[in-house]
């Protein structure tokens, strides 16, 4: 994948760009990005992966949640240049060939989406949850998805879909390893709404 030729799409010609090498949905990507771009900017504008949505750019709403090195990350709070050497997974990776993957299928079956704007955030949060191993209870699922807001569904069907996926299909166990990544790179802390700080997400 290559960046659009128009430098205008990346900002001004004078803006210093940073080269990163990252793996996105299994494919290695080398890109030059403005240092102030966050990961969601990078995914959407450099790679055209518009399934990652932006809702608040404050790390609260969770629309932009992606999986980085196996953990759910709010991609508006991580700079694109921090992706260097890391592995990213987005909603575009979930379908199998041309068919919905099991998690997506469970969301459809349970009517867990209406407008669909928040849906990629829930899908990637659930994907990261599965990488932790184990089978979360309904109450644990409910707690885990509080980092993603939805204004349409009332959440009940989202909980049901994830619960069903874990019961029937979810892959258990560890996350895919980063390709040559530095596992110790700090992720920006995410302020939670109670005012405290915790690791992302």
């Amino acid at each position, binding site marked *: 994948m290559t960046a659009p030729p128009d430098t205008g799409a990346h900002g*001004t010609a004078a803006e210093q760009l940073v080269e990163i090498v990252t793996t996105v949905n299994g494919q290695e990507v080398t890109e030059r990005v403005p240092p102030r771009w966050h990961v969601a900017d990078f995914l959407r504008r450099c790679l055209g992966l*518009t399934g990652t949505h932006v809702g608040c750019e404050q790390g609260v709403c969770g*629309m932009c949640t992606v999986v980085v090195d196996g953990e759910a990350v709010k991609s508006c709070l991580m700079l694109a240049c921090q992706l260097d050497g890391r592995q990213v997974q987005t909603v575009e990776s979930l379908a199998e060939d041309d068919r919905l993957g099991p998690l997506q299928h469970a969301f459809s079956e349970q*009517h867990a989406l209406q*407008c669909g704007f928040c849906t990629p955030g829930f899908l990637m949060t659930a994907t990261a949850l599965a990488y932790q191993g184990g089978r979360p209870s309904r109450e644990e699922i409910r707690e885990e998805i509080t980092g993603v807001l939805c204004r349409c*569904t009332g959440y*009940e*069907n989202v909980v049901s879909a994830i619960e069903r996926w874990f019961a029937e299909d979810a892959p258990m166990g560890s996350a895919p390893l980063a390709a040559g990544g530095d596992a110790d790179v700090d992720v920006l802390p995410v302020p939670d709404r109670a005012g405290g700080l915790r690791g992302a997400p």
Partner: protein
Amino acid sequence: MTTTERPARPAAPQRAGVIGTSVPRKEDERLLRGDGRFTDDVDPARVLHMAVARCPYPHARVVRVDTDAARRLDGVVHLLTGADVRAATEPLTVLRPVPGAPQLPYYALAQDVATHEGQAVVSVVATSRHVAEDALELVEIEYEPLPHVVDVLAALEPDAPVLHPSVLDSNLLAVNSDGSGDPEARMREAAVVVEGRFRISRVTALPMETRAVVAEWRAGARELTVHCSTQVPHLVRKQLAESLRLSESQIRTVASDVGGGFGLKLGVFPEDVLACLHAMALRRPVKWVEDRAEHFRASTHARESVHDYRIAADADGRILAMTDVYTTDIGGWNSPFGSAQLSSVVLNGPYRVADGYAERRVTLTNKTPVGAYRGYGQPEVNFAYERLVDQLARRLGVDPVELRAKNMVAPQDMPWRNPTGAVYDSGDYERCLRMAADAIGWAEHRAAPHEPRPDGRLVGIGFSSFVERTGYASSRFLARRGSQFGAHESVTLRANRSGGVDVHTGVSTMGQSSETAFAQIVSEVFGIDYDQVAVHAGDTGASPLNTGAFASRTLIAASGALAAAAEELAAKTRRIAAWRLDAEAADVEIAGSVVRHRERPDAQIPLAEVFNAAITGQGIPPGEEPGMESTSHFEPSDAAYSFGTAAAKVSVDPQTGEFDVERFVLVHDGGTLVNPTVVEGQIRGGLAQGFGAALMEELRYDPDTGQLVNGSMMDYFPPTAADLPPVELLHTEVPSPVTPFGVRGVGEAGTIPPGAAVANAICDALADHGVELDSLPITPETVWQALSRAAAANDDHLAPTPGDLPDGGPG
């Protein structure tokens, strides 16, 4: 959390088709794959990005604007100021004017004076959003702050600063009243009058996708294409033409996937006009995506109102009169939909009363403009009258369920006209009430002694019965109010050579599942497979002129248009097929992907072949016109009223005011359910917003500075997955006689009852303390304060010592 599904559908006829079944949604696959096409996903070549400088004051004169430094920044392409906008455009228009109100001048950029924090003052276009925002830092705007007022009642005081002195002497934009009988006489005669002042907090719809627009102008063709996140693409086209001095034929508006609307995305906003102006000047595409800080200040807010409500009753508890004099806050300007109008329309809720009066006092304040939000006045008035019905029951010493039942409009009374002219079409209101009371265990609760549980908490049960106006009474009703749209919907069906049917609608897709429901109706009426129906939504270039997706009206109106168009196409399909099968049209039927002879199953012809014949005009009967396309418009004969009763069970700590909603039952009637799963989703989603407004959400302004103090996702609390109480849904299904298929709208019902039901439950639990809640949101703090007030008034020792606040936070 438990979910009980107890569908109670009396004698619902079994249908052969897909209406009434929960088929998979048409919308799901693309959205689940991250392949939706929201406005920010539209990315034309050479697109430029817009950012907007906004007034930081609640009320200020714009003294001087200096854009020189911003223009010199590398990457900045174009700027607009108020004077540019004034020269090139007309003021923004409104779609649902406040009756009797003068037009308020409001341009896309502030002229001399800005009337609210967040009002647009300068717009910049640059090579990226980042650079455009850099440029905003270099724009110098000198303001002269003016006296402001943010409290809606203070705005009506004689000494309040007037927001629009060129057209008004005060901040009272208009007074609208409606009613019948002589409620004042009934008040004088009544054995009991209960009254109260009820304050409803300012909240916002908060769709997860903010507003967004992408404008492209082809100067040679004089063609403006506007991708816009809107519920009403055809009305946006109309309003853009009016403001930009273009003909509608020069504008195409496209709303493909909309990330939630809830009433907020109705009509043109200033930034839509600005993006178009920039694009026309530059002949390059221009994109603007609202950031969340802008969304909290420059989209629209909702609900804020103060209701002075009275109910008069005789000694037996028969309601004699109901009146509501209420002040609604419209903010700094009249947005396209203005402040809510339905508190007057459903003044009396489900109760039978001849004498009633509603008076709406629409008031300007130096705050973000108020627009439509799911419920549109119905949750507000429900909180007032349902709180008072419970107080009436306490005054009379009667069971609040029996009091409600005694006063409800009965099935045999309908159609029935309420005091403000609404015609309730049909329904069994009392049955919903009884089902809710049974489900929540009301009889057992009422018989049990009023004692704290072992955990020290008191338990209470509260009810809220409601009606929901869905759809519009008629285009005549709308015309009387100056509304700029009709009560109908329209649709074009077009068969294709692959054997499918394409549905073109101006109703954009925003989560309401209209693509699915429309395809179900076409499949049902035409006989074609559901999978062979494709719905193309929200493009004014492809769809017939329509009204749009709001007021729980889409399906009510569109189902008639869909049915008529499908019947016309089906008849033509049968005629052509019969001719080709050498049979009579009456003897053939459409079944899935073929047309077949009813008695000779081997005599059949693929739909694709019939459609090809029609489209080419080759192989059709003599006298038959070529083509297989139909456009229909349909206006329902009247609005349909959904209805129901909610019951909440709460436990309250009488020392701290902390409370939990332990159960919440909603019994709801949405008429014939086209897709039960989708309807349940609508109800649950509405309830979530209802609980948000009832228990968590409040936009607060500092009266001294006039600033919005919690305008961010960090400080404003829509419910998360962990914040909602367990919900149990039950349904009845009384088909409406005024709509096709008997459907009623279901989009807004859930927003209506949570506030009143929870408040009534808390007041029931704290009845021995004499607590009566009168404002939203209800938080542990407000309950604790009410306990303190009641204790002070009673001068007893039941309440906590004033002083320490419980650390419950926003509950």
